Structures are given as C-alpha cells and as structure tokens.
C-alpha cells in the first residue's frame, strides 16, 4: 500500500522519501521490539542490505520478502494464495497433475515446510515458508543458455521469460535452494515472480499492490519491500531483528531474509526449563550468526 508509494518516492527524492519512510517505519513497528531509529542509524552492525560486497554488481533497488519465523503458523494461506494468483495470471496456468488422485503433483512458487528443533521436552515446531530468494548474485541466471532467466536491473526481481525457456532444467540444477519448478504441462521453468504483475498494477487499489502471499498471511509473517532502502520496513526488520540469509556459504546473497525466533516470556514460562532454554538461545541465537562473512571467500 503506502509501502509501494514510499518505494516510489524514495527513488525520486531522497529527502522526501526518507521522511515518509520514517513515518511508516514507526507506524508498522511491533510493540515488543520497537525499532529505535537511533539504533538503526548508528547501529552496531551495519545494515545488512547495504553491507554487500562491492565487487559484484549491486542494484540500487532490490525488492524482497522478509519472513518472520516467530509468527508463521504454517497455515499455507500464502501457498494457496500464490497458486491462485499465479495460475490465473497472463503467463498461463500452473499445472496440477492427478489433482484428485493418490499422488497429486503440481507447480508451486511457494512452499511451507515444517521443522522440529531441539530435544524433547525442549522442542520447537518451526514453520518455514520458502520461495525464490531473488539472490543478488543469482547462480541460476548466468547458466541459462537462452537468456530466458534474468534479473531485472530496476528492482532486482529474478524472472523467467516463459516464451524463451527451452525447459533444459539447468537453472534448477544451478539453484541451491530448489526454488525453481518445471511446469510439467507447459514444459518451461517457473518460479516466484514476487507478483510482478500485481505490485506495479495501477488498476489495483494501492493496498493490493503487493505479492499475493503477503496479502494472504493472516499473522503478518511476510514483509515486502526494498531491502536497499535503509529506512524501509524490511530493512529495519532485518537490521533490528537479526535477519539472516539461507545457505550463506555459497555467496549467492539472497535478497529474501528470515527473522529468527526469539524467546518470549510467555513461552519461557510454559516450558519446563526456561533457564535451559534461555541459555540455549544465548549460546546459539536462533539461527542468526555472524557466520555469513566467513562463507564468502
């Protein structure tokens, strides 16, 4: 909604854009972790979005999702909403094979997986949505023999031109995240488009100009915005809440990031050994570490 407007403004006038972004940042802040702007500006750790290596090409704007593992409840609303929007899009349907049979299969851009961490009784069930991470250095793009796979300079979205794709599957081999799926009916590679046909659609109400998965999430676990704008909601979330990238060891610099789980007083009070739990969190964090830097050699 206003986020989109803010992105637009920010690219035009730095001063005006920053002011608007500041207001929005304060407005969407969650009560428990109020993003203190001072920490953001003088921050101990540099903003993740700006600290990328200078050697590779960096874009001025990079749209991405930030997924909050604290509040994802694993309802799959983002999965079905994504499928509904993208199967009805101009690019053609996403196939469903054997949909009512014993082994249904089909093309999805987004999947929610579930993991169990820890040893009973100190276990946690973590729902983990995963779609294309729109890497800043996407390994799937240079390997494409036809140029069907590309990364947009204007906003960093990684897309497939379905009219050029020959279905050789090499890009899927080259993606360590398994984010690409070959559509078995159309025989072309498909992937998350960040709903590029929604977010710029001026026919839509401004509030609807965001990815279908973000619109659908009932708990607000999915944030969408420009990670290169240090004052955007996503940048603030990454900075203030320890946003991290998947498989940092391969230097793909995913644009999508994940917000690690934090211990809360409510959970701490109900688990049998809150002190042990807190110690575990203190020792490991919950996934985010400064290991990112070492993997980039």
């Amino acid at each position, binding site marked *: 909604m206003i986020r989109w407007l803010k992105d637009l403004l920010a690219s035009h006038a730095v001063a005006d854009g920053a002011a608007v972004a500041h207001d929005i940042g304060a407005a969407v802040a969650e009560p428990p972790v109020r993003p203190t702007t001072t920490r953001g500006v003088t921050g101990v750790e540099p903003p993740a979005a700006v600290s990328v290596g200078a050697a590779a090409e960096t874009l001025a704007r990079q749209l991405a999702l930030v997924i909050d593992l604290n509040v994802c409840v694993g309802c*799959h609303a983002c*999965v079905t909403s994504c499928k509904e929007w993208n199967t009805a899009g101009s690019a053609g349907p996403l196939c469903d094979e054997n949909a009512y049979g*014993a*082994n*249904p*299969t*089909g*093309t*999805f851009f987004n*999947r929610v*997986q*579930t*993991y*169990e*961490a*820890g*040893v009973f009784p100190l276990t*946690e*069930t*973590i729902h983990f949505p*995963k779609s294309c991470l729109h890497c800043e250095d996407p*390994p799937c793009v*240079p*390997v*494409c*023999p*036809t*140029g*069907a796979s590309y990364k947009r300079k204007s906003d960093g979205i990684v897309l497939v031109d379905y009219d*050029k*794709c*020959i*279905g*050789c*599957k*090499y890009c*899927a*081999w*080259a*993606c*360590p*995240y*398994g984010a690409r*799926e*070959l559509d078995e009916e159309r025989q*072309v590679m498909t992937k998350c488009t960040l709903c590029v046909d929604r977010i710029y659609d001026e026919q839509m109400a401004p509030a609807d100009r965001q990815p279908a998965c973000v619109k659908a999430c009932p708990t607000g676990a999915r944030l969408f915005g420009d990670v290169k704008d240090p004052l955007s909601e996503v940048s603030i979330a990454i900075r203030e809440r320890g946003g*991290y990238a*998947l*498989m*940092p*060891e*391969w230097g793909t610099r995913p644009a999508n990031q994940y917000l*690690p789980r934090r211990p809360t007083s409510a959970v701490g009070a109900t688990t049998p050994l809150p002190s042990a739990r807190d110690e575990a969190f203190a020792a*490991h*964090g*919950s*996934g*985010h*570490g400064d*290991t990112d830097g070492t993997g980039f050699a």
Partner: protein
Amino acid sequence: MNPAFSVIVFTTLAGAAQGLVVALALATLAGLSISASFLAGALALALVMLVGALGASFLHLGRPERAWRAAMMWRTSWLSREVIVLPAFIGAVGLWWLVVRFDAPAVWRALLLPLGCIAIAALLWYCTAMIYACLRFIEEWAHPLTILNYTLIGIASGSVLCCALAALAGEAVLLRAIAPWAFAATVLAGATRVLALRRNAALKPRSTLQSATGIAAPRLVQTSMGMSAGSFNTREFFHRASPRVYRQIRAAALMLLFVLPAFCMLWALSMSSEPAAAAPWLLALLLQVPGLLADRWFFFAQARHPQNLYYQVVS
C-alpha cells in the same frame, strides 16, 4: 541428482565419437598409412554417433522446438558454449570426411583438419565437463577431476572403438599404433575416475540443514516438506535407487568400463599374430558400452544437490 537417460546417452556417445576422431587424427598426423576408405568409413561412423548424440540431447528439452535459442548466452553459460561447439565439431568432422572421401590436397586431409578436429574435440570435452564443474555447490562435480574424467573416458572409449574398427577392417598398422594408446587411456581414465569417486565418497557437504534453514539447533529434523506427494524437486534431484543397487552400479561401472576392457586389451596386445584378431577388441567394446552408461549414471546419481536438504520428509 536423478540421472536423465537422454543426457547419459548424449555425453557418452558424443565423448566416444570425439575419442574416435582424436585417435584417427593423431594417427593421421603421425603419418601412418591408413586406407582412405577406412578413414572415411570411421569418420562417417563418428558423424552418425555425433548426430545421434545431438538427437538425444534434444530429448532432454521440454521445448525442443526452441533449441536454437540455446546458442544465445555463450558469454556466461557453459551449456550455451557446448551448444555452439558441438555443431562446430560435427562440421569439422564432416569437412574432414569430405576431403578424405574426395581426396583433397594433403595439407587439408592430413594436417589442418585433423589438427582442427583435435582442438575442437578438446574444447567440446571442456565445455561438457564445465557444465557440471561450474556448479560450485554440487561439490561432487565442482572439481578439475570432472574435466579430466570426461576427457579421458571419451579418449578411452573412442580409441577402443577405433581399435575394434581397425581390427575388423584389417588395418594392422593403425591397430598396432593405437592399441597401446587405447590401453594407456583406459588405465589412466580408470585411475582418475577412482580418484574422483574416492574424493566424492569422503566429501562432507558444506551445506547442512542448519545452514539451509538458519535454525541453529543441533537436532533439527524436517517433519513436512510442504506437500502431500511429490513435486519437481523430489523427482529431479533424487536418484531413488536403493543403496544396494547404487553400490552395484558403481562396481559394475568400474569393472565394465575399465578393469575388464583393460584385460581384453592386454590379451590383444599379447597376440602378435597377423592379421590382428578382432575378438578381444570387440569384447572390450561390448563391455565398455554398458560400462559407460553405468558410469555416467553414477556420475549424476552421486551428486547430492543442496536443495535435497529441504525435501526429506513427505507428509
């Protein structure tokens, strides 16, 4: 990875054709007396194999009618480079076949085109292997041994084919010159392949479920991959052979591709009767064909794609 039969056939068939052409080119450059009809026939066979390989590669595509587009991104994509170099190699071999067939000047027939064919064959092996070796997170492939394996296995299988053809056609001079070359190539290819297999068996993947999800807990298990049945991700990246079959294919590949043919060649080399006996060479060739397929199957099956970390439990 789930080995695709089309890619297995393509890489082994093209590799053997390249090896055959390289053996013929080296023999020609060495000034051996080879009858023009034999040379033309062997080159024609190489052409048929290469065109067959090209056809197999089309079977891998979801949209083969758009295959011409694959030559576009040669600046960044090894697959695109291969798509350009393969027809170039077919063209060079075709040209050589033409000048041999129609007895063109010796500078073309016995110098320039053999040299060109060797160079393009080497380039093609490099492109084919780099398609796999450039994927840095498929650690079984991302190693110079991949390039060495593809090249040496192509040379070995092609020169065994060349020896079998020469033995059948009674080209004793050629056979005597190429036989030690074929034996050495087979032994060397086997040795480097064993090196690669040992390296891969000892490989500890850099990516873990922890780095893939960012959840640091030492005990972390997937309880659902997010779908009730399979998907492209579960079909494309898992070979699904049982551990027993997997080990058997590995053993069969080493025996059929390297060990048994090497013994056949020793048997052939120990016989000095004229005209050369074709039986050991034909036997070596017959053993190598399934060996090549098994070895290439294993090459793909052994590669553990990091995406498999995300797809462990169907529920």
